[in-house]
């Protein structure tokens, strides 16, 4: 089932800045869709249009079958957003934030208390419930903002760089929680600069560059389309420490086998380095960086 559909979407800001141009894609139910791109590429603009916070200038976008421009009120009760650089109110506790957002979204007091407890437990915030937000670490503050969105139990969740400032364990707990949400049927669109995060989470990804689609597809396709394959590093023979290691890019299983056999024969250490999304990303947007540099 298609949850998000974007057709030839474009956005030019009132000042004349063109932020998006001709972007089209769709997101299926239960999918995690990652938006990647350099700073200012148009990721936040695209996310904000889909979250009904910003009006597009051309094209159409549908969330849960409703047009974001014509019928935003039908979309809003079913979505939630974690905005980029959102901050908690420093003089309030995490419990206040989450409970009040639950109440504002229409839950009864009893339901709101129950839901607040559940979300705080899930995100490891319960033990910090009565501290002031000013006394929380950066990671806990970010988790609090995420909790304020999750408390709505949305069908579609939009997250703009949600794990920024989180430590590796905090990031993993957010990833786990996002996977749990999709298992329950939620659909997630997130922007990130962490390519390992996209690699770990994305069912599909869109790389935007200067407001245009630079790549659309799966992580594996991104690596394949850009020719970024597995690398094999063959260390120099023992006793010849000054020689540089050989970096090889085998194209077939036979080539891999031949390299391994040679390593064994010559008693050389052979290391396999899988292709990373980061390399693919740099290849995809690198062209425009080089053009800019010249």
């Amino acid at each position, binding site marked *: 089932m298609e949850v998000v559909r974007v057709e030839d979407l474009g956005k030019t800001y009132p000042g004349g800045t063109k932020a998006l141009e001709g972007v089209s894609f769709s997101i299926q139910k239960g999918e995690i869709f990652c938006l990647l791109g350099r700073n200012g590429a148009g990721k936040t603009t695209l996310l904000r249009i889909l979250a009904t916070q910003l009006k597009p200038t051309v094209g159409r976008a549908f969330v849960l079958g409703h047009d974001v421009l014509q019928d935003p009120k039908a979309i809003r009760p079913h979505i939630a*957003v974690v905005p980029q650089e959102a901050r908690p109110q420093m003089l309030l506790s995490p419990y206040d934030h989450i409970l009040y957002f639950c109440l504002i979204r229409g839950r009864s007091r009893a339901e709101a208390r129950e839901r607040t407890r559940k979300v705080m437990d899930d995100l490891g915030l319960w033990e910090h419930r009565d501290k002031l937000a000013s006394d929380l670490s950066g990671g806990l503050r970010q988790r609090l903002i995420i909790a304020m969105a999750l408390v709505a139990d949305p069908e579609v969740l939009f997250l703009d760089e949600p794990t920024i400032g989180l430590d590796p364990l905090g990031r993993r707990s957010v990833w786990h929680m996002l996977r749990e949400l999709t298992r329950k049927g939620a659909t997630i669109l997130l922007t990130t600069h962490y390519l390992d995060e996209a690699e770990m989470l994305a069912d599909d990804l869109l790389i935007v560059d200067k407001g245009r689609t630079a790549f659309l597809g799966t992580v594996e396709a991104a690596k394949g389309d850009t020719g970024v394959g597995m690398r094999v590093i063959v260390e120099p023979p023992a006793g010849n420490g000054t020689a540089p290691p050989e970096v090889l890019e085998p194209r077939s299983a036979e080539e891999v086998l031949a390299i391994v056999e040679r390593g064994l024969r010559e008693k050389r250490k052979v290391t396999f380095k899988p292709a990373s999304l980061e390399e693919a990303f740099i290849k995809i947007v690198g062209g425009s960086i080089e053009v800019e540099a010249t």
Partner: protein
Amino acid sequence: MKSRLREALYIGLFDALPLLRDPMLLVVISLFSFLPVIFIFVFADQKSAVQSLVGAIVLTFSFTGLFASQSVYFNKQWFRFQDMLVASKVSPASYAVGLSVSGLVVALPGVLVALVLLLLSGPTSVVGIFLLIATSLILWIGLVFVGFAIGATTKNARRANSIPQVLSIAMGFLPPVYYPLARLDAYPIAKAFAMLIPTTHAAQLAKYYFGLIVIPDWEVALGWAYLLGFAALMGFLASRRAHWVDP
């Protein structure tokens, strides 16, 4: 309708919560506009002090209206709570009412103290109190609109803090709100400027309804017309400036 009122109530409470959690700060802030009354009471006569007390009530409402700009700015640009609430079933009207009313909650203790003092200072009527509150509320509505226009237009935190404070001085402490308009009779230009400021008209009406001054009927009518016109004009300005969904 009931759910919209509930949304507005919780938005207002959430916005006022930092102050409600700290009653000492709440008392200091809510009594701020009453400080000049103490000096007038010490250095002038009791009649002037009562006039300034009425003026302080009017100003408390106007300050809370102006300072809605801070709520608007910080919820939109700093905390980004507005973006989170746009992506929910919350209506823009509930949001606007909630943020506006949160200021009134903060102002309430000071206003109640002032009303008690006014009742103790001499005979007064229920109608007088009602019309004093009504005048202040009309001014408050106009200045809430000003606050929304400022908060939505401001792009940095420094301006969001300084602009309402500068306007508070210009609209509160300079014009004849604490002191009688008659003091400006010797300065016709200053008096003409004062008549352009909405707080002057609100204070004149409030003092009149409280029986502290006598003004002709045409000046009463002018005062109401000015306040209503100001509120309508500022409402139009705010509707052009403050956006729920960014253009």
